[in-house]
């Protein structure tokens, strides 16, 4: 068997583990275990992204999902209870209905998607092809995604960075990190 055939089975193992972790997150009531499992979930999905050849996405998922958001979830858990209350039967049924309808809509949309690796899919058509052709000559770096983000759409990326920076600045000014929280806790003691 060649390498590509074998990695397919490893994909199935990863997906099976993702499914198990997803069910466990829904079933468990201990919030600390749920926080740990969300970290494990993004670690697993990042490993799966690597096997799908989406290394950039895997990098972001590992840094944000497994790193920052686990810490943020722990900080949020400090402000709430340790155990979640069990929801009533009625809410179970309503959620099941919403999930079934959304799932059926997604399955309905599957036939409209292009075949995996098709030459005439939107990703391979239109401007994508010219980016692939022009990047080695114009930008002279091997990674096309980086070339698109940092050079062809450089102003767009710059705008996004400004927006995220402004949002973070606003949150820090509103909440007051490192001054308000620590001092208030010492006053209480």
């Amino acid at each position, binding site marked *: 068997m060649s390498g590509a055939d074998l990695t397919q089975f490893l994909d199935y193992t990863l997906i099976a583990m993702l499914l198990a972790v997803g069910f466990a997150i829904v079933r468990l009531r201990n919030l600390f275990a749920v926080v740990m499992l969300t970290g494990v979930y993004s670690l697993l999905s990042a490993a799966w992204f690597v096997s799908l050849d989406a290394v950039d996405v895997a990098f972001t998922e*590992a840094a944000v999902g497994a790193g920052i958001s686990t810490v943020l979830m722990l900080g949020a858990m400090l402000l709430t209870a340790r155990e979640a209350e069990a929801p009533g039967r009625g809410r179970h049924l309503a959620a099941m209905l919403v999930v079934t309808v959304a799932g059926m809509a997604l399955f309905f949309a599957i036939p409209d998607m292009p075949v995996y690796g098709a030459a005439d899919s939107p990703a391979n058509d239109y401007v994508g092809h010219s980016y692939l052709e022009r990047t080695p000559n114009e930008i002279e770096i091997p990674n096309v995604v980086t070339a698109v983000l940092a050079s062809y759409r450089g102003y767009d990326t710059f705008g996004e960075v400004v927006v995220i920076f402004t949002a973070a600045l606003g949150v820090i000014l509103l909440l007051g990190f490192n001054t308000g929280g620590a001092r208030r806790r010492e006053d209480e003691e």
Partner: protein
Amino acid sequence: MDTLNFIVALGMAGAMAIMLARLFAGPTLYDRVLAANSFGTKTVLFLLVFSAIAGRQDAIDIALLYALINFVATIAILKFFRYRSLEIALAQMSLRRAVEGEFDE
């Protein structure tokens, strides 16, 4: 060689599944912290074997990043449960406790 790597990768996946079982069941907090940390290490090894099978060198970078993030996340979780806060630096914390004489007990 590919077949051998594949068997190693399957064994790694089996070890990951065992860690998952401990994460689901784990009665105490420290069982879960240890299981999550060990699961991260298994993911790093799994990715390395995977990069050998698929012949893709760039997966090694991701594996290194995972090892770093795994370490930092474990430290953050343990610090959180020791001090109930992420705000103050670890060194500062132990210094303050030493000054207050809490290490004498």
